[in-house]
């Protein structure tokens, strides 16, 4: 156990930090006025994840097996290339002295009090997450089980999987396989959750550097740690998504601020190098998560349209200026390389007309017609929603300078996110609205931090200190109590470790005793904890064993669904059940011993061959 922890402490930086360090070195040298140490440190994590993905794509393209030694060698080669690029760009050209003279701006030189506030916020943010995860750390979450199956196929085969379905994106799986290949720490351990926790914490920092660049106010930067890291630290898409293994969202939430960070800097500073990095990070997210990419593209469009709308008179000059930024060698080179990657190296599985048409157009299900205000409040968090609205008001009243890009990034992002969540039909978005709502916290966090600091500044200058103080403390009391209410629940939860281990035991029993080439297993997903990890015991096929899913999934107005997995468990001896047994060839049924397992005992066509307190396994006679 101690050895495994040490291995993770060594391997996490190799996978999640080292490639990014050398990428940043090649991009910005050792010290650069354009970017501070803090930003470089934060950006190493997202760039490392993107680079590891790209390395695996190249290995796979040339049929080089993705194995531990090869991956480590590839990372070392990448680092060498990065170092050579750094030498060429910053040393050979005599920029050494110039480079040393450049001092990055002081956006991140915090005062002692700001530093203490930030450290406290980070401590609480990490503590709440660790406390919550301590009750869910044994792998059991449904999404995590599904994703780990694909990561295990990479580990076992040394190749990237062919999914055959647009539901999964390769960038969600490579990183887990990479850590396993280098450390040997298995996927059915705490490792995947710890990796997601790392990415989740890195996501707080990426949001912070975006806010720092937008507002250029160190107080707002410091408050961002509280708003993004501490408030609603457990609610989706934070702690619950880490433990739930919602991989794409967690990585997407880290990458979206990075893409917008570079876009903002490219536009605001008219810097084509940042424009190229914007495109590079955008490509990274395209390979990582379709929903995050979809939301991001709409967010960018919303920001751009907002800026053009509020600067309508100068629209042609603005567009001309943008063209000048992006029609430069570096952004064009990034685009061309991306094109080559897409066509010749690896195309994301969802890049096809049917997947695009499924996600666009008029909403086809009740779950896609938008969220009501209560649901929006739950997704963003009441406190954040109120602060976000206050932030919008303060920007409109006190800081309205339409030519400033930060206005469009802060306000345009919130507006487009709200439209996507509240009235998706206006934008012809046809994806589950609650998933869209999970991204509301990003722009609302930024506006909330702005609102908190500006509100405080405003009332410090007010004539009546008494009323100012009462209002401020009332607001802070509400924000803190509301924002921490979900975290309080984290300490009351009860773990399901025994149930999960009984599920694992039944899977182990079956994996040793069934012939997977002919025996078909049907398990229940509704009432069995950790069942999605069943497939990792067999590693036969993504859809092996069969599973009875949530009942709502069987009723789909857009397309007919198979119903036999439901009907067999419902009653295997009525006509429908018998027909289903014949069609599917099910030999074993795995059920919760206290629920369906009790009723299944009465069916003479099945024998109960395995009985524990929690799980019953039935074999067809």
């Amino acid at each position, binding site marked *: *156990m101690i050895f*495994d*922890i040490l291995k*993770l*402490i060594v391997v*996490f930086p190799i996978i999640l930090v080292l490639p990014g360090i050398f990428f940043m070195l090649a991009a910005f040298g050792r010290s650069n006025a354009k970017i*501070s*140490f*803090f930003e470089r*440190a934060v950006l190493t994590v997202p760039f490392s994840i993107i680079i590891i993905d790209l390395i695996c794509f190249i290995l796979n393209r040339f049929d080089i097996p993705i194995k531990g030694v090869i991956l480590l060698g590839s990372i070392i080669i990448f680092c060498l290339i990065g170092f050579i690029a750094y030498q060429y760009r910053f040393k050979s050209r005599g920029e050494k002295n110039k480079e040393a003279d450049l001092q990055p701006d002081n956006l*991140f*030189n*915090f*005062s*002692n009090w*700001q*530093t203490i506030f*930030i*450290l406290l916020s*980070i*401590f609480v943010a*990490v503590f709440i*997450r*660790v406390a919550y*995860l*301590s009750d869910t*750390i*044994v792998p059991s979450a449904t999404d995590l089980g599904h994703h780990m199956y694909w990561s295990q196929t990479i580990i076992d085969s040394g190749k990237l999987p062919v999914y055959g379905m647009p539901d999964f994106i390769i960038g969600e799986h490579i990183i887990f396989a990479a850590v396993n290949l280098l450390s040997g720490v298995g996927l*059915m*351990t*705490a*490792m995947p*959750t*710890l990796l997601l*926790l*790392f990415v989740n*914490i890195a996501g707080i920092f990426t949001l912070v550097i975006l806010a720092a660049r937008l507002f250029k106010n160190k107080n707002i930067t410091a408050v961002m740690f509280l708003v993004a890291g501490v408030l609603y630290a457990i609610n989706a898409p934070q702690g619950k998504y880490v433990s739930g293994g919602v991989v794409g969202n967690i990585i997407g939430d880290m990458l979206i601020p990075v893409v917008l960070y570079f876009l903002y800097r490219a536009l605001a500073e008219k810097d084509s190098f940042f424009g190229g990095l914007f495109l590079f990070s955008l490509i990274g997210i395209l390979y990582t998560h379709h929903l995050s990419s979809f939301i991001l593209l709409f967010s960018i469009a919303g920001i751009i349209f907002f800026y053009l709308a509020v600067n309508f008179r100068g629209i042609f000059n603005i567009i001309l200026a943008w063209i000048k930024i992006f029609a430069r060698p570096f952004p064009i080179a990034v685009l061309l390389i991306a094109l080559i990657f897409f066509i010749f190296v690896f195309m994301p599985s969802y890049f096809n007309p049917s997947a695009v048409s499924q996600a666009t157009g008029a909403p086809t299900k009740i779950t896609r017609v938008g969220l009501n205000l209560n649901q929006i409040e739950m997704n963003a968090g009441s406190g954040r929603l109120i602060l976000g609205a206050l932030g919008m008001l303060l920007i409109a009243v006190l800081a309205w300078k339409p030519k400033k890009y930060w206005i469009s990034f802060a306000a345009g992002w919130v507006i487009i996110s709200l439209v996507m969540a509240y009235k998706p039909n206006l934008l012809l978005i046809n994806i589950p609205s609650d998933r869209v709502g999970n991204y509301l916290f990003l722009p609302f966090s930024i506006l909330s931090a702005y609102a908190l600091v500006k509100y405080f500044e405003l009332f410090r200058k007010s004539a009546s200190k008494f009323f100012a103080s009462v209002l401020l403390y009332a607001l802070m009391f509400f924000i803190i109590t509301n924002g921490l209410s979900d975290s309080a629940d984290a300490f009351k939860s009860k*773990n399901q*470790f*025994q149930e999960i*281990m*009984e599920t694992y*035991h039944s899977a182990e*029993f079956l994996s040793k*005793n*069934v*012939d997977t080439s002919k*025996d078909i297993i049907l398990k229940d997903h509704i009432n069995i904890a950790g069942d999605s990890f069943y497939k990792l015991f067999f590693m036969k096929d993504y859809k092996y064993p069969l599973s009875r899913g949530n009942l709502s999934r069987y009723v789909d107005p857009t397309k007919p669904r198979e119903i036999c997995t439901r009907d067999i468990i419902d009653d295997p001896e009525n006509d429908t059940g018998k027909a289903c047994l014949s069609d599917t060839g099910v030999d074993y049924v795995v059920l919760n011993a206290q629920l369906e397992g009790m009723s299944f*005992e009465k069916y003479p066509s099945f*024998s*109960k*061959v*395995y*009985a*524990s*307190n*929690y799980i019953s*396994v039935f*074999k067809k*006679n």
Partner: protein
Amino acid sequence: MQSKIIIIATIILFIAGIAVLFMIESLNHNYDYGKSWSVVYFSKPSDNSADFTIENHQGADENYKYSYQINGEAVSTGETEVPAGGKVTVAPPQEYEMKLQEARESVSAPNVIVDVILDSSEYKINKVIRNQ
């Protein structure tokens, strides 16, 4: 300097978090640690063998009582001590084969039931024995 302190403090906190969570997972990713359950299963569920296994994950040594029945008729009873975290495989008694043959005269595929009892918990498994 402060920004370096923030990054370093975050790394230290994360490493501490990793260590704590990994240890909690490793301890609990175990059939016995902090748990109280038992399991009974046929050692070879897909053939006609009536051998069964009892695994004890109750946290202490336990004495399990069991009985064999064929078509609801008691064949034999017994008990076995299973150490904490251990397992014991029980083979059917000598009279089992004879009783099975007798049952086959009336039913082509007799139903063998193994009933294991620990305190108030009952673990019942069964198997239909067919001619092979």
